[in-house]
């Protein structure tokens, strides 16, 4: 049941009606039932996996909490008799027991994810190695089910269990409430990856019907459908034509494909998240924002603070920091300082943990070398940018251009090109071809190739291009208003009633009339569904 299908729209309609007509105490159980029905419709077998993740997290989080309570009670009871060292040793022993439980839970859940998602990738690489050594033997691929949204709900649940281990969240005592946190259907398939303490309160509390909240949610849903159906699904045809035929579409068209894909991915992913957040909002539930106008970033670091924010903060909090500040890493840093000097020693934790983060980010996106290399290329670019920071600083000290709007514009365009060129790894079938096409973009660039006839050969009509151009202007304008004045919906809501309704119906008309194939035509799923 894709977000763009009639059945999904009917499904949310029914859930919405029941949500506000049934007694308020039934709201969260209704959402749990709806989430499991949603998942059951996708495939009954998926329920086994999400159920296993939920139950394991429930059992382990209760155990972690119980150990903490046991520790606090023991320290309180022996306050007068325990020496500082004894107290420290006791706490360390409890932490070690908690760590074993946490590790068990992580291995179990990440193990499921790894086996289902990466087994065939490992087999393919192993077969490649066998062939390289001239062996005729090959291992057969295995037919494994990959539950929808497994990467998202596994990471969300592991975040929760780590928070309980750290003591920043208490364990949820009610299994069904935890089950809703893991499976909340609007965000199940493509995130955001919520934190328990951010989502839980509004997820479980009772909500009365509020016209403003519901209107805001509906605007957001329509805006999401507009981005997905009118922009992403339209430009998809041209992107596919270019990337699936690299022999024909070279030079300038590699650049065109790269920029078209940047627009498609933005409209697709942010559109999907708008629908998710909008659905939750109509029910009074606050889901964490996942984007903050990423294409207005002035450098790659800023871009990653604005794009897929919940994934970025997840990797920072649960991979980057734990690796970079763990005792072995600090010892390695000390050793490196003593051996190679301060300059290298200081960089060791940052470089090694960043490498781990970007490798994981790459492989999280998909079991292919394209994604791994894409992740590592991000790592390389970020580190080069980090090392060049003193040079930028010198440049800015000498030339007072930092506040100049044209200089800012150039920085934004530079960042868009840089990020879009890295995204080429999403497009072409393998890593060598991606590198080749990147070079080809410069070596075979001929302006005369980019003529009207060639553009019309990409599967889009002249009217499509005009429409996409108008949409682009609209997307940029909305982003600039949000950046400078805040919420566009606040502005719409402050306008006369007639304007509010006009915007609402214009959005519906735009989606129905200009949607590439119309809602209900499941031409393409959301790109991030496959992760």
């Amino acid at each position, binding site marked *: 049941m894709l977000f763009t299908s009639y059945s999904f729209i009917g499904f949310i309609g029914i859930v919405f009606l029941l949500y506000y007509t049934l007694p308020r105490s039934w709201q969260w159980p209704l959402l749990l039932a709806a989430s499991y029905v949603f998942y059951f419709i996708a495939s009954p077998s998926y329920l086994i996996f999400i159920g296993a993740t939920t139950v394991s997290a429930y059992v382990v989080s209760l155990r972690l909490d119980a150990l903490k309570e046991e520790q606090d009670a023991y320290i309180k009871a022996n306050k007068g008799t325990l020496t500082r060292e004894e107290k420290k040793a006791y706490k360390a022993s409890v932490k070690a027991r908690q760590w074993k439980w946490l590790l068990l839970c992580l291995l179990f859940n990440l193990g499921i994810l790894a086996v289902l998602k990466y087994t065939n990738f490992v087999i393919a690489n192993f077969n490649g190695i066998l062939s390289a050594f001239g062996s005729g033997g090959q291992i057969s691929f295995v037919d494994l089910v990959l539950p929808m949204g497994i990467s998202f709900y596994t990471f969300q649940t592991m975040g929760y269990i780590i928070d309980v281990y750290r003591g920043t969240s208490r364990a949820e005592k009610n299994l069904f409430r935890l089950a809703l946190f893991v499976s909340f259907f609007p965000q199940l398939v493509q995130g955001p990856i919520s934190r328990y303490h951010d989502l839980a309160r509004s997820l479980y509390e009772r909500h009365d019907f509020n016209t403003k909240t519901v209107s805001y949610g509906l605007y957001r849903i329509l805006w999401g459908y507009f981005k997905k159906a009118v922009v992403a699904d339209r430009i998809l045809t041209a992107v596919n034509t270019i990337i699936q035929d690299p022999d024909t579409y070279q030079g300038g068209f590699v650049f065109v494909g790269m920029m078209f894909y940047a627009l498609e991915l933005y409209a697709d992913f942010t559109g999907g998240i708008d629908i998710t957040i909008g659905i939750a909002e109509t029910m009074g539930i606050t889901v964490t924002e996942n984007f903050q106008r990423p294409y207005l970033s002035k450098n790659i670091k800023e871009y990653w603070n604005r794009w897929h924010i919940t994934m970025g903060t997840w990797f920072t909090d649960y991979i980057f920091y734990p690796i*970079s500040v763990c005792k072995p890493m600090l010892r390695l840093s000390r050793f490196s300082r003593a051996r190679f000097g301060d300059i290298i020693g200081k960089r060791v*934790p940052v470089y090694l*943990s960043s490498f781990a983060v970007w490798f994981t980010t790459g492989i999280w996106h998909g079991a292919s070398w394209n994604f791994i290399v894409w992740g590592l290329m991000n790592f390389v670019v970020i580190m080069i940018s980090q090392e060049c920071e003193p040079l930028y600083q010198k440049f800015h000290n000498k030339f007072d251009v930092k506040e100049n709007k044209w200089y800012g514009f150039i920085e934004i365009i530079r960042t868009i090109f840089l990020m879009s060129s890295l995204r080429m790894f999403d497009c072409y079938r393998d890593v060598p071809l991606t590198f080749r096409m990147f070079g080809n973009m410069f070596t075979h660039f001929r302006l005369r190739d980019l003529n009207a006839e060639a553009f019309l050969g990409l599967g889009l009509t002249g009217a499509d291009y005009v429409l996409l151009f108008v949409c682009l202007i609209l997307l940029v304008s909305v982003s600039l208003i949000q950046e400078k004045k805040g919420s566009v919906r606040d502005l719409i809501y402050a306008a006369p009633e007639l304007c509010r309704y006009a915007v609402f119906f214009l959005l519906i008309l735009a989606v129905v009339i200009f949607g590439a194939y119309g809602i209900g035509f499941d031409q393409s799923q959301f790109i991030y569904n496959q992760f």
Partner: protein
Amino acid sequence: MDALLEILTNLHPEVDFETCSTLVDDKIIDSFDIVTIISEINEEYDVVIPAEEIVPDNFNSAQALYQLIQRLEDE
């Protein structure tokens, strides 16, 4: 406190760490800076700041960071 201020100032000479209390909130220091600061604190004070203590409240000002170091030293 002086040693901590020196660590911070070496990292960002342009910032007045004695008065600034929005180091994380205003994105004056980022995750790379935080790791470098933790590594330097480990060198200087022999204190390990665990990952769960890396929250904005502990890193928003030099004072908050110093209090964290003292608390970890006491534990």
